[in-house]
């Protein structure tokens, strides 16, 4: 209503005359202060908006929220922010009356400007109105809206900033607390899509398949962390070798391979972390196993228990997982047997740690470097040998093929084979099992593709 009356009153003046009127100064100041109010509102909303965006993006990247949730939450927050901003602006934006009041205060106008800004001019005596305008115009020169009313950051912005920073700090604190207690994030989620991306490329199809299998095995609850880690390392090695080859070829799939390598490293770190966090529970398990293996490595026990352990080893070699309870029970039995074992018992304990990892490593074929070093120190058991090493039972991990030999050669052949030799078994047929050279030896069989880890047990 006031605006309509104002426009009606101002309609009788030309643009030049209007510029010199006190009412115009009031309008100018009101617009100036409205811009300030807009800045205030924007500054008030900016910190929480920034904090919210950062938090949501962080949560999105951490896979805590999905894309849809991100979009919906973001839209909702932005909508709320806009609504709040609008309502806040309506409250803080000064009216023409407020602007006039400010001018009166600043220039000592004794309510001249508020009268001019709010009075209905059409019902006022013109001579009094003219006089009032004249008086107000005389005061106008003392006022410069931009200079006298500069923008100042309001306390609300400081409060908003402090509040937002507090939220960020709390968020970080809770995140740290959460990550301390929560299990490490599973990076194998990243590996599966990468494997899918690699699979259409012919030269990476094998690698992709192995990565997919690794992903599947990572979900296997029966595998221990050390076993998983060794699988990861192996896969990492393969990816790195592929990456090196790709670099030489100048291929364009470096990114994918790099990502795969990163994902594998992340998985490994995650496993290490989770292993560290769950140390208490794992230690108990180790203790049980260690005691059991101690007997296996050095101590003599009764035949029955020996037989049980051998059965367990065979089970492991076949790729099957011994039941945890079974292993623990065995360990306990051995512990009872080795009561007061001293040094040997200790070494047995150490070895038992390795048994846990090696059971799977042997099934897979290759072990990690660390494991290899540890194994090299212990030459007591066949199953701790690295693939290709000569053991009591022959070459570890050797793949056998049946070949036809001439009669004389067949007669002279020792028929060397692990079990056959030991038990005095000699084949009567004119065939012989000749061991293949280790894959890394110069005269090794020309094997083009490395066998998948899972198939090695079957071939053996």
């Amino acid at each position, binding site marked *: 209503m006031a605006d309509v009356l104002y426009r009606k009153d101002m309609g009788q003046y030309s643009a030049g005359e209007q510029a010199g009127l006190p009412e115009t100064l009031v309008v100018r100041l009101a617009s100036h202060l409205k811009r300030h109010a807009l800045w205030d509102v924007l500054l008030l909303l900016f910190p929480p908006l920034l904090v919210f965006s950062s938090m949501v993006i962080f949560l999105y990247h951490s896979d805590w929220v999905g894309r849809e949730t991100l979009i919906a939450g973001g839209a909702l927050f932005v909508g709320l922010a806009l609504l709040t901003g609008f309502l806040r602006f309506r409250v803080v934006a000064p009216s023409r*009356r*407020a602007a006039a*009041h400010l001018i009166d205060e600043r220039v000592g106008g*004794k*309510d*001249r400007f*508020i*009268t001019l*800004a*709010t*009075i*209905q001019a059409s019902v*006022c*005596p013109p*001579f*009094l*109105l003219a*006089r*009032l305008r004249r*008086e107000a115009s005389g005061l106008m020169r003392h006022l410069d809206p931009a200079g006298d009313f500069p923008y100042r950051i309001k306390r609300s912005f400081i409060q908003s900033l402090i509040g937002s920073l507090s939220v960020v700090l709390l968020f970080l604190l809770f995140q740290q607390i959460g990550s301390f207690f929560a299990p490490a994030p599973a990076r194998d989620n990243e590996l599966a899509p990468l494997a899918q991306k690699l699979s259409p490329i012919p030269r990476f199809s094998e690698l992709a398949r192995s990565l997919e299998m690794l992903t599947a095995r990572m979900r296997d609850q029966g595998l221990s962390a050390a076993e998983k880690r060794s699988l990861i390392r192996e896969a990492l090695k393969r990816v790195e070798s592929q990456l090196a080859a790709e670099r030489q070829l100048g291929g364009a799939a470096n990114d994918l391979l790099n990502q795969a390598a990163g994902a594998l490293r992340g998985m490994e770190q995650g496993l290490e972390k989770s292993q560290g966090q769950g140390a208490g529970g794992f230690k108990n398990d180790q203790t049980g196993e260690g005691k059991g293996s101690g007997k296996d490595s050095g101590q003599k026990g009764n035949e029955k228990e020996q037989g049980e352990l051998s059965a367990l080893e065979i089970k492991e070699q076949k790729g099957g997982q011994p039941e945890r309870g079974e292993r623990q029970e065995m360990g306990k039995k051995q512990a009872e047997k080795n009561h007061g074992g001293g040094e040997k018992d200790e070494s047995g304990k150490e070895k038992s740690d390795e048994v846990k990892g090696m059971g799977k490593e042997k099934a897979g074929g290759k072990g990690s470097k660390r494991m290899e070093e540890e194994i090299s120190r212990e030459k007591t058991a066949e199953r701790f040998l690295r693939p290709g090493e000569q053991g009591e039972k022959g070459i570890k991990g050797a793949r056998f093929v049946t070949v036809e030999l001439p009669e004389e050669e067949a007669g002279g052949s020792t028929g060397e084979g692990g079990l056959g030799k030991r038990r005095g078994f000699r084949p009567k047929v004119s065939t012989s099992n000749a061991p293949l050279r280790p894959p890394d030896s110069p005269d090794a069989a020309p094997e083009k593709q490395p066998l998948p880890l899972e198939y090695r047990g079957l071939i053996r």
Partner: protein
Amino acid sequence: MEPEKYREQFSSLEAEVRKVIVDHADVIRKILIAFFSGGHVLLEGVPGLGKTLLIKSLSRALGLSFKRVQFTPDLMPSDITGTQVLTENDGRREFQFKQGPIFAQVVLADEINRATPKTQSAVLEAMEERQVTVFGETYPLEPPFMVLATQNPIELEGTYPLPEAQLDRFFFKLLVSSPAPEELMEILHRTTGEALQGASQVLPNNGAEIIVEMQRLLRQVLMAPPLEDYVVRLVHATHPTAQKGDGAVPEVGAYLRFGSSPRGAQAIILGAKGNALAEGRVHVSYEDIEAVIYPALRHRLILNFQAEAENVGADQILAAVIKKIPRD
């Protein structure tokens, strides 16, 4: 009339009265404001403070007819309004209306609370309607018309306190205070030396016309809607029944039986306009309003027993109201 002319006349009148009356500048100004607003004034103060002299000086300066009525318990209404008297004119006897003292332009009702309510009420019609009815016949009073009543706040024995309805008809109630030592010295110098020089006439012979013009100009003074809103909120805040929410004034609820009537708001606005013109402005400011709140409302607030018992006055309650009600 131009605002400058108004101010000139107003200042001259003020100065002339102040030649006779020492101090009481605010009272003089408020009386003049009430006069140009067309209101009546009740002056309250102990005897000997110059109330009567002030009013006499003012009427003389204005150049208007002046009558004084000393109110006593045996004063009859007809003594004020006038009565029909039987006269013989050319052998014919007839009743002729003989005007009372109320038929003056400035009437001083001295110690108005000493007259009976019946006599007091005779003044009521004159004050509000500006006319007198005697024996069924109505006689208009000549404009400008103003009643200036005085009352003594301490000698209450044998007095008849003015009823609320009559008090409400007074535009302002002004308190005349005792002079300070320096002012008393000045009073002594003026009154105990040579013959006291009275006020001289400021307005010309056609003063009544000028006064009517000045009264018209006063009503044209510009007043912004936010200021009118402030007056409304102030008056509304004096009502004990309106004490709710943020605008509640505890003193009002505790000490008042009734708040101000709409006449109070009218008195504030007209008084503020008069004050603005007296200050040389053509628009009302918040200061003008606050300058006239006390005289305009103090006699319109009806105090309760608790206020009487605790000796709480209307001015204290008004101060609380002004403090509580924001300008914007």
